[in-house]
Structure formats: C-alpha cells, structure tokens
C-alpha cells in the first residue's frame, strides 16, 4: 500500500534561469576528531553538529568516508541521539530522529541516488503529522519518505479531515504529504 503525501520533487529547472550559485559548503563541528589518512575516514565525536545547506544534523558520533581522489562525500554514518532538521519541498520543517542515520550518495547510469536511512527508534515529524518505521528512508532526490513497519499519524487540520491514520504494519510505504 502506498500512502502518498505531498513531498513533491524539487523545483524543476527553469529555462533562462540565472547561473547557479556555488553550493555553500557543509560545516561540521565537534568536541574532537580523528582523521585516518590510510582508511580515508574522518571521525567526529562529542556534540557533533553538521550545518548543511539542506539540513542540520546533531549526534554524538559521525563517520565520514572521505573521497580518495576528490569528488563529493558519498557515505556518512551518524550515531547516538541523531536529530536531523530539514525542510520539505514546500519549505515546511521536517525533523527526523533515531539512533543511527546513514547518508548515501551515488550516481548510477546518470541517475542520482541520495538517501538518508534512519534506524533505531526512527521517527520523522513534519507539518502534517509524524511517522515511525524501521527503517525510514528519506530520499533527498525527490524529498519522499518511505518506511518499513510504518506507523503514521496525521495531525487533524481545521477541517477535521484526518487524525490518527495509521498505516498497516509490516509494509513498505512511500509518503507524500496531503495537499
């Protein structure tokens, strides 16, 4: 069963659009850090804060696989008290929490896959409600959410349209927020 709920794709590229500005860098702050030049890993521990143009993340332990020959970071693991604050395509706030979050980026056959997988008491809150699941996968390419063993709750709006709508257990559903 697919539950759709309006996290639509990012804005379509406009014609005659102004030249793209460079993407601001991602900044990571932490109490301490370990950099493995042989294993090409950066490990941050203690009050880790990630400030990315698309989201803010906090956790206690963050491992970044560093690209060996330049290019962008393709694999990040965040652990312990993971909190992710971002926005959906409409600019509505989204908040994901869990024990662990894994970020993966890859381009295969000209298709970009960019996901964040939340596990361990995983929960995502958004303007229309919240959902839990194991895992919850946030697809950053189209800002959609999917989850296994999903449980969803929609906040009741002023029209009283929905409240406490629970998805069946043990299914993998894709979420889009209601219009």
């Amino acid at each position, binding site marked *: 069963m697919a539950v759709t709920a309006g996290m639509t794709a990012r804005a379509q590229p406009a014609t005659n659009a102004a030249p793209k500005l460079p*993407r601001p860098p991602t900044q990571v702050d*932490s109490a*301490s850090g370990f950099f*493995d030049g042989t294993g090409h890993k950066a490990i*941050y521990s203690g009050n880790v804060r990630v400030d990315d143009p698309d989201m803010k993340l906090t956790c206690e332990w963050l491992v970044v696989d560093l690209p060996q020959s330049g290019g962008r970071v393709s694999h990040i693991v965040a652990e312990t008290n993971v909190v992710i604050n971002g926005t959906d395509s409409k600019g509505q706030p989204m908040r994901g929490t869990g024990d662990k979050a894994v970020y993966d980026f890859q381009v295969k056959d000209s298709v970009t896959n960019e996901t964040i997988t939340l596990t361990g008491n995983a929960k995502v809150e958004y303007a229309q409600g919240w959902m839990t699941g194991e895992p919850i996968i946030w697809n950053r390419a189209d800002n959609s959410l999917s989850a296994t063993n999903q449980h969803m709750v929609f906040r009741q709006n002023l029209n009283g349209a929905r409240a406490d709508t629970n998805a069946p257990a043990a299914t993998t559903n894709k979420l889009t927020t209601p219009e």
Partner: protein
Amino acid sequence: MKMKWSSAVRVLSVFAVLFVSGADGQAQPSAVSRASDFTSVQYYPAPFQRQVKSRLSGAEAQPLAGGLLVIKQLKLETFNMDGSPQSIIEAPECVYDTLHDAASSAGHLQLQSGDGRIRVEGDGFLWRQDNSFLTISNHVHSVIETGPETNARL
C-alpha cells in the same frame, strides 16, 4: 623496516645539523642547537619505495631530551601512492618525537585535503606518521565543499 630506515636517515640528518651547530668543537650539550628549514621524508614500502608518503618540514627545530624536536611552523604533507597530494597539516608549533614518528601540540592546527575541498582546524593534536592518523582533541571545525569541483589546490 626499510621505510623506518629511510625516515630515520633524514631525521638523523637533522640531528647532524643540530650537532654541528651545537658542538662547535666543544662537548656542550647544554648549548642551544637549532636547525632551520629542515625536512623529514617518509616513503611508501616496497615496491613503491621511491614514492613519498609524507614530508614533514619546519622553519626551525630545537632538540629536547628523548629524541624530541620542538618544531616551529610545522608543515606536514601527505601523498597518495600515485603522488597526488592527500593532505596538508600546518601548525605554529609542535613537538616531534623522532623515535615514534609522531608530532603533537596543545596548540592550533589546520588541515586541508589535497584538492582543497576539505578544511579542518582545531586545538591540540597528535599525528602518527606511520599510519597517517591524526587526532584533534578540541574545538574541531570542518568545512567540506560538496558542490561542483573547484580548482582548489595546494
């Protein structure tokens, strides 16, 4: 073993400079001995023994007991096996342990990846040259360029 030897040769050359400047024909261990603009290079093991793994340099080095060197204006460059730059570490001052190939300091440190897309700074560090492992103890701040590749270089 060979890698250690090649590294040791260069460290010994630093000591030779220190000895010459300090001995001056007299056995005066307490004399101030310094070396300036020195470099210590470590190579990859065979069969890449001609390939530089890391190059540690400083504007000034002063020996301490136990094989330690106080280095001013530390610059530590590491390289991939293909010779491309891997990272550059710079610190105003550190203590280099010639017996264990390790550099440490309570002071500030800056690190930049070879392509310039990752920059890190912090306070207090330990660098182990044999396994290229860097620990930064406090106030770690990283900037990671995630956009299209730039021409950022060394």
